[in-house]
């Protein structure tokens, strides 16, 4: 009983609980439809690559997981969200492909510039976008949603402009590698894992976490205590841009083309949702990166589950919304209070019986 209490008190309990909830739906469905009950977790190797629903969740969830890193920091430091990340993904992929293929060319099988140059440019433009957003928020005091609304609409359009309104295909194996497989493991999984690992190491060995949370909780007091609040906020937006850039390149490599109209479309909402599902307040302040990452994969797990259940991609958003509502309500304060009261009553009743 005490052990159970300890577990439910853990900060990550609810995000993990939500994740398990989604997995349980899979198990129940599999039992109902006569599949082996644990087929969701079954990983096999087909044609030399890992295969299974769990792998699919990890693979497809990579982009949102990477975005969630940056989004968590932005939410914490500025009590606002960066809604431009989806567009920035598309812009970063667009610039990279445009450089690799050459302007106006829509289909190449060898690089116009070295691969590293194209990728670096893609990531660099994303960082510049972050810098722009951060400047508006931190130094011009514009509300985050309004400030990032600019690139939300313009980012994708610039990407389209760069690609001359075409879908630019880069049919080179070394490009496809980043959206394909590294040995038997999907490369995006590795990229996401590396990003998460770097982020957690940075938060552990530097005081960045304290800086960001302090600024997010009380900007004025942080400044008096010697933090450069504006710089910290700017930095968070640049990191968020960087994450959007990496995520955009992963999405682009996956389809080895810059489909600027569709890459990262509505992805900003998933990233924000991931932060919220991770138990983080969108009002800024304290954050929990692990929660956001779990949140990101939970979202992907919901989508994958729905497809496995045979829900069409057009109807999926409805069911996704229902699951999200459930998860958010479970994590809400009134429900928490209700359960607390319930367990207190139980304990009181138990005591009364024993007496």
């Amino acid at each position: 009983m005490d052990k159970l209490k300890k577990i439910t008190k853990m900060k990550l309990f609810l995000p993990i609980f939500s994740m398990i909830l989604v997995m349980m739906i899979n198990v129940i469905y599999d039992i109902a439809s006569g599949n082996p009950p644990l087929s969701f977790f079954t990983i096999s190797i087909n044609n030399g690559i890992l295969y299974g629903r769990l792998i699919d969740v990890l693979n497809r969830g990579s982009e949102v997981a990477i975005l969630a890193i940056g989004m968590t920091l932005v939410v914490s430091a500025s009590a606002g969200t960066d809604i431009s990340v989806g567009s920035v993904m598309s812009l970063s992929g667009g610039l990279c492909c445009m450089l690799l293929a050459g302007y106006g060319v829509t289909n190449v099988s060898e690089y116009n510039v070295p691969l590293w140059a194209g990728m670096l440019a893609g990531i660099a433009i994303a960082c510049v976008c972050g810098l722009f957003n951060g400047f508006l928020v931190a130094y011009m005091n514009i509300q985050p949603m309004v400030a990032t609304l600019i690139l939300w609409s313009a980012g994708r359009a610039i990407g389209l402009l760069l690609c001359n309104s075409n879908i630019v295909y880069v049919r080179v194996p070394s490009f496809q590698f980043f959206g394909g497989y590294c040995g038997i493991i999907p490369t995006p999984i590795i990229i996401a894992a590396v990003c998460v690992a770097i982020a957690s190491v940075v938060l552990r060995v530097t005081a960045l976490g304290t800086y960001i949370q302090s600024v997010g909780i009380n900007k004025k007091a942080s400044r008096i205590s010697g933090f450069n609040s504006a710089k910290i906020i700017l930095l968070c937006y640049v990191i968020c841009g960087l994450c959007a850039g990496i995520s955009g390149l992963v999405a682009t490599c996956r389809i080895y083309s810059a489909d600027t109209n569709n890459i990262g479309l509505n992805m900003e909402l998933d990233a924000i949702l991931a932060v919220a599902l991770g138990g983080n307040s969108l009002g800024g302040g304290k954050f929990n990166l692990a929660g956001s990452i779990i949140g990101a994969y939970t979202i992907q797990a919901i989508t994958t589950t729905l497809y496995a259940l045979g829900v069409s991609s057009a109807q999926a958003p409805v069911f996704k919304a229902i699951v999200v509502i459930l998860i958010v309500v479970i994590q809400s304060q009134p429900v928490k209070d209700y359960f607390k009261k319930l367990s207190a009553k139980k304990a009181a009743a138990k005591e009364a019986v024993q007496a």
Partner: protein
Amino acid sequence: MENNVVLSMKGICMTFPGVKALENVDFNLKKGEIRALMGENGAGKSTLIKCLTGVNKFEAGEIYLDGIDGPIVNKDTMDAQKKGISTVYQEVNLCPNLSVAENLFIGREPMTKIRTVNRKKMNEMAAKLMKDLDLDVDVTQNLEEYSLALQQMIAIARAVDMDCKVLILDEPTSSLDDNEVAKLFGMMRRLREQGVGIVFVTHFLEQVYEVCDGITVLRNGTLVGEYSIEELPRVKLVAAMMGKDFDDLASIKPEGSGDKSKEPLVIDAKGLSHAGTIKPFDLEIHKGEVIGLTGLLGSGRSELARVIYGADRAQTGTLKVKEKEVTIKNPIDAMNLGMGLLPDDRKAEGIIGDLSVRENIILAMQAKLGIFKKIPMAKQIEIADKFIEMLQIKTASRETLIKQLSGGNQQKVILARWLATNPDFLILDEPTRGIDIGTKTEIQKLVIKLAEDGTSVIFISSEIEEMLRTCNRMAVLRDGSKVGEISGEELSQEGVMKAIAGGAK
């Protein structure tokens, strides 16, 4: 219910995680009575009031209110207000970005026939209310345009206007100057005549004896006693609050510590200014000197200090720190030169509410070290424990969130934050505001100890007595400019008053 009693609380108990906040506390208030609720920080005054107004849920006890049968439990402050209990809290809890009129009538706006807010009528009513209370305020301006003092007065006006039986004033005077306090007392006396019962929470002993009819004293969450004002002279009151005899404050300054003018200069400011807040001033501060800034509220005391510290950037003039000319653009520059600032608005500029006591203590030290040199956890714990012990900070643990501490203990944490950086020059802006008398003495003694160890201190306070006890020299400010300095023989209550009023050169 007895005759004349408007409010009666019996056997109130309440626990916070790890701390027994209230234990079996009674509180009685008559009609037309002003009753002081006294006690040190953490004695449970604010908690008791929050139990009454429904902010905190108490575990045991009963509350009776005149005109209502049986015990009442307020669900929230709205509920309490409907029953006739209005509160003005220690910190102004209004909406700064709404107009004064909107703040006054929030939740009870006059309506038009089609159920929209009748702004014209609302503004008229607000203007009349302000005029009745002799406040010079444009009710259509946003609340944030006005000083903290005026905001407080508006908060009180709002509470007064809602036909209340019980008015609770939680530290209403801590940000008011003498004039405004007199005005407030006038308002309180008028309400007393109308039969309103007033609960007055304050740390200013003089004010208690000026305006109150009775005193209820709490200590460590328990009731010490309920007295009439005649029964409890000042010394006895202090003894009741502290549970021991009053440590005489008059003699904390060591003899012969007056003149520090031969010590090396730490701060040498020439013609510093910041448009709109402080006109150009010169100021010299020597090593180990405590210099007081005095003047009426809004005279530029805080603003002068903020310019030196870089909280507001100096627009003219030069600043020399330890004989070297420097430019300070941001607080961090000042900190790297060995400065620290304890701001007057603790809630807005002092505490990082959602961080723990430990994190709040190491904050400035971490900022000085920079982002890449994280203080190891073991070291953080060591520092936090050291200061919790040294300043006797009352907290359930070092990991408790600072917002859960009482005001005085929060202040100690902020003080610890600066002491941890080993400052050469410390600016303390109202360090004892809203703090009980015992802690006040501790802080004053600490300031003198720091000065003995060679730290220079700027000490800003609204209480002249307190400054006389601690300062070697005082700078006098009036209407945003420094008008003179007083030291030596002139350092007396009378001398300072004269200087503030305009008698000095």
